[in-house]
């Protein structure tokens, strides 16, 4: 019985000692972490900003929306029909390069034909 009591005492004492050391270590580490960190900045204001007022299609009347759509499409069609610079892939009369017509030697068509000698 005495042996049992002695064993129990040793167990409790050992466990208490180990856990006490562990608790001490935890405390020391926490202190080290706290002292090691830079001074914490002020926490940012995380409240969401009010959304800017955007005019959406929902705020336009059907007539306004239709008018804008037609105007945009008409403008695009006019640019296309007039071969405006924004839709042009070949620019006649450019001062930067010779015309393709000249480059291909087709101006010969505008000159008198020469008989073979």
């Amino acid at each position: 019985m005495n042996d049992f009591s002695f064993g129990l005492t040793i167990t409790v004492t050992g466990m208490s000692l180990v856990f006490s050391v562990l608790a001490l270590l935890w405390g020391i580490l926490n202190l080290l972490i706290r002292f090691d960190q830079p001074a914490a900045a002020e926490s940012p204001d995380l409240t969401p900003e009010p959304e800017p007022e955007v005019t959406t299609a929902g705020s336009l009347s059907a007539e306004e929306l239709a008018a804008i759509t037609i105007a945009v499409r008409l403008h695009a069609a006019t640019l296309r029909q007039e071969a405006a610079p924004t839709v042009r892939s070949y620019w006649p009369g450019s001062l930067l390069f010779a015309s393709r017509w000249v480059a291909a030697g087709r101006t010969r068509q505008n000159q008198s034909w020469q008989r073979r000698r």
Partner: protein
Amino acid sequence: METPEEQLATLFRLRERALQGGGPERVAQQHARGKLTARERLALLLDPNSFQEIGALASSPLGDEDQRVPGDGIVTGFGKINGRRVAVFAQDFTVMGGSFSAVQANKICRMQDLAIESGIPIIGLNDSGGARIQEGVRSLAAYGEVFVRNVMASGVVPQISAILGPCAGGAVYSPALTDFVIMSESTGYMFLTGPDVIKAVSGRELSTQELGGAAVHCVRSGVAHLSAADDRAVIELIKRLLSYLPQNNNEDPPQIMPYDRADRIEPALNSLVPADERQGYDIHTLINLICDYDSFLEIQPLFAPNAVVGFARLDGYAVGIVANQPAVMAGALDIDASDKIARFVRICDAFNIPLITFVDTPGFLPGVEQEYGGVIRHGAKIIYAYSEATVPKISVVVRKAIGGAYVAMSSKQLRCDLNFAWPSAQIAVMGAEGAVRILRREELRTAENPAQLMEQFIADYRRRYFNPYHAADLGQIDEVIEPAETRPRLIRALEILRTKVQQNPPRKHGLYPS
């Protein structure tokens, strides 16, 4: 001795005077007539801040000093339209009714000379009461100076005339010598002799619009090529027309970025031509389905509507379209249609625009009036124009191509580069009934039942000759194509022909049938 400040003050005063034109009252009157002033028109026509005026301070040496107006009733200069350099002149009706003077002529001639030398289009906005009577023969001689330059510029640089007000007497010949005449339906009119003279000579009373309005020249006389409601619409039309034309005869027309699929197949074309050959259809439908979406600009749409000509785009490239219109007179060629087609073919050839021809014609229109009117020499113009043209030429026989009209409408022998035909094509010397009556005359005369035999012969004739395959056998047709694939076929053919070079024999000029 004037100081530099005084010299500048004089210049600024004259400039200000030129900008005022005929003064606020005359400008208000011009607006009341529904017309814009010369400078307002140019502001609409040209890109912002692109106009540089030439001859702004020139004034007529005749008359009192205080009555002289700098500019002398015309605004001339250079500018840009959609970034393209152009020479322009605009007659100012607020100054002495825009009357044509020697100074006006000098200014116009200067623009014409510079336009020819620089290779840029020249656009004239006409609004003039006629010759300035006070100048006598000077103003008449001045007309001649302009005319000769119109001719020298012809086929070298595009010339476009807008008739936005009166254009009477000798003045009409300058627009008539240009490539395109566009009239304002509300205010433009042109005639050689006015209503007063007509009334004195024939007793007939006519208004200026009835005598020479847009309705007359766009529908009956064929003098004008296009018309629009008012000044603004005419100016928009000029811009659109210019988009199909090059700067000069050494240039290609503008090419725009393709916006319609080149390989687009159009199944609707397969059923466009009615099975009944006597039934017409609108050739515009065919043209619009084949060409780039919304790209067709018809020229002379109301004059000789049995033929359709105009500019369009295929894969972004400008092309000239010539077609018979089966919905009007079955597409038969008459005097006016011949003139219309021939002139358009020559314009395309002069300005390097490939030609696409859609053929569906039963032939030249028979009739005493046509024969007396000279349909032979008018029809010869088509043959001459197609034969002379060196631009890429492609034809598509859609249905009828009968007799002389088949030859005239860009046939293989007229140096057409590629001849396509639809399966519905009927290529023959003459119509089935006429041919059978001649070929089977004896058999029909002796037959017990001539009507039945006639039907048999006609059916046989149709089977043997009224198809494209006989012509394809002989090499007259290069390929019989499915109608739905016409667009990609044409685009590929044009791609091949883009570098085509063909020369005509040396000569001063050909003798064009006239």
